[in-house]
């Protein structure tokens, strides 16, 4: 864990010097001293973008771990309860009909993400069969499908020359327009959410037990789950509203964290955050540096994440000597 954290710090530091200016690659400290534009670029473009990609990865990684533990399902990810698709729908509505303000897009994305979560909860209460987790899963799938249909309608009515390309690029995910404004708007929600998740991480081990056992241990499962889910969804919704849809991080990173650190969430949750942050920063570095044109971040996280995941899952874990 310490090595991984050190690795994250080193990657972040190197990322500040990596880019397309003055040429593709690293900018030397000498050039940095002499070139005011280079310094400006690092402070006003690269640094906020680095912070957002770090927060994005940490949020999605932590939220993914929480979701997979609470739902006891290794296939769920943070956008599961209609959160991702709700955010996409909200952002699409704002892009097409509510003007050009970035605040409106962010607010609508976050609002609709929470609406997705709320709708999933309400529907789950109305389903008459199965345990609570099953009902929540079914409700989440339905709500996601509804919002997906809504996004489809928005894409259909969007102006193909002007609005549709903008919407499509947002749906693919990317941090191409991130500035300090986005950092200021996301920090007040994301940092407290991550602190809550970290401080309650050991509870996740307990919440994987049956409700009867949890009660007998003096823990209120409903309240605990709500707090953890709320914090996870809050961080996810706010970050999606800035980055667009960036998939696979919340799904794959928890698996990687459990692979490296085991299932104990006291270690695997912080591990998810560190791995998520590291993975997202690396993907964003590639997205903005590999080619002259920006590569949508969501494409890279899906491609590299899936490849790395397959590689890891197909290699046998080395047996530890007790």
């Amino acid at each position, binding site marked *: 864990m310490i090595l991984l954290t050190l690795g994250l710090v080193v990657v972040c530091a190197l990322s500040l010097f990596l*880019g*397309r*200016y003055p040429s593709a690659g690293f900018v030397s400290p000498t050039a940095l001293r002499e070139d005011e*534009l280079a310094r400006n670029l690092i402070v006003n*473009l690269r640094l906020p973008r680095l912070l957002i990609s770090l927060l994005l990865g940490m949020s999605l990684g932590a939220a993914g771990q929480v979701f997979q533990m609470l739902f006891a399902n290794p296939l769920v990810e943070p956008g599961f309860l209609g959160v991702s698709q709700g955010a996409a729908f909200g952002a699409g509505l704002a892009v097409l009909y509510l003007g050009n303000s970035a605040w409106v897009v962010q607010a609508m994305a976050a609002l609709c993400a929470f609406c997705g979560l709320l709708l999933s909860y309400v529907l789950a209460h109305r389903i008459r069969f199965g345990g609570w987790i099953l009902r929540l899963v079914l409700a989440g799938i339905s709500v996601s499908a509804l919002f997906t249909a809504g996004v489809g309608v928005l894409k259909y009515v969007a102006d193909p020359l002007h*609005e549709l*390309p903008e919407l499509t690029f947002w749906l693919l995910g990317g941090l191409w327009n991130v500035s300090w404004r986005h950092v200021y708007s996301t920090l007040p929600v994301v940092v407290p959410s991550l602190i809550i998740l970290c401080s309650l991480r050991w509870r996740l081990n307990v919440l994987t037990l049956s409700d009867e056992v949890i009660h007998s241990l003096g823990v209120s499962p409903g309240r605990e789950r709500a707090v953890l889910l709320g914090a996870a969804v809050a961080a996810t919704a706010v970050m999606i509203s800035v980055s667009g849809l960036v998939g696979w991080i919340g799904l794959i990173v928890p698996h990687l964290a459990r692979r490296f650190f085991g299932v104990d969430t006291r270690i695997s949750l912080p591990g998810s955050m560190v791995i998520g942050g590291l993975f997202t920063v690396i993907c964003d570095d590639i997205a903005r540096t590999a080619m*002259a*044109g*920006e590569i949508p971040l969501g494409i890279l996280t899906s491609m590299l994440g899936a490849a790395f995941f397959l590689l890891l899952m197909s290699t046998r874990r080395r047996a530890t000597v007790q």
Partner: protein
Amino acid sequence: MSHIEKKGAHMKNIRTVYKIMVLVLFLLPGMASSLCGLEVTDALGREVSFEQQPQRIVIAGRGLLIVADALYLFPEAPSVVVAFEKITLGKGNFLTVVDPHYAMKTVLPIDVGAERIASLRPDVVLMKSYMQRKLGSSLELLGIPVLYLDFETPDQYERDIRALGHLLENDERSEEIIAFYRGRIRRVRERVKSVAEQEKPRVLFLYYSERGGSRAFNIPPADWMQTIVVEIAGGIPVWKDIKTGQGWTRVSFEQIAAWDVDHIFVTSYFTDIDEVKDRLLEDPLWTSLRAVREDQIHAFPTDYYNWDLPDPRWILGLTWLASRLHPEEFSDVDLMAEVRTFFRELYFLDEAGYNRYIKNMLHGDLP
């Protein structure tokens, strides 16, 4: 009749038959043509036949404003066009200026289907060639003639203008239009040919887009008109060797700064270009670029439509761009007179019409 006389008569008959055969062979194509009426070769190399000159033309599919604006270069257009899809690009509807019967035309919804078009009983439907799979093939199945056009490069302009001239049986007009374009292109080429390759300015062309509060800068592909025009105008398009997709490619500010070009041309299709330039000039990152410090950031002109699009106005964009890159070579060219001449000769707009419809629509870095 003796044997020799019989043979002579026989040979005479054979010669007569041969003459009739030769005559028929010469006349047959003409006869066939008059039976078929008209044959036009479209952008996909298809021969489209008509019994007579089309009297009901529908323009449909994406990019239709380019086709429509080219069709309206012909005086027959207002009387034969019956419908077109809604045009969403631009700062107004230029067709209302050039078509006195516009109010009587049918405006179709975007992405209109074949059935709706068929209900208008068109004699021909004009569309861009990339619409064949999505729309054209359905119309062809219904037996409705479709003429595919491109209008994406100068060479395609000549070819497709000729096709339209043939369709409207006004080849003379198509040659006039082609001569106009050739003359302007030749003038630019001749004036910039003395500029050595290593002295040619490095140019960046950017499309500024803004949606949801986020702004983006995009570069065109190498085979688009914007890139071609920069090359004809004697500039070096720095983005040409980059592998882009089929459409606009987003680039970061870092990449823009890394190119460190001599000239930056900015266009915007949905935001006022003068406002865009002002915003860039207020941005401390942009003002640190060499091209901006040297006052070589240019707002691409526009009236109803942008002059960088492969609309007929691209010839104005070429002249303007060349005058910006090589001002000393074009110091004698009165650009505003060029604009008047363009609308007068190509769209039959007199001085009063120009002042009423065009003058107040002009934006960008114009004298």
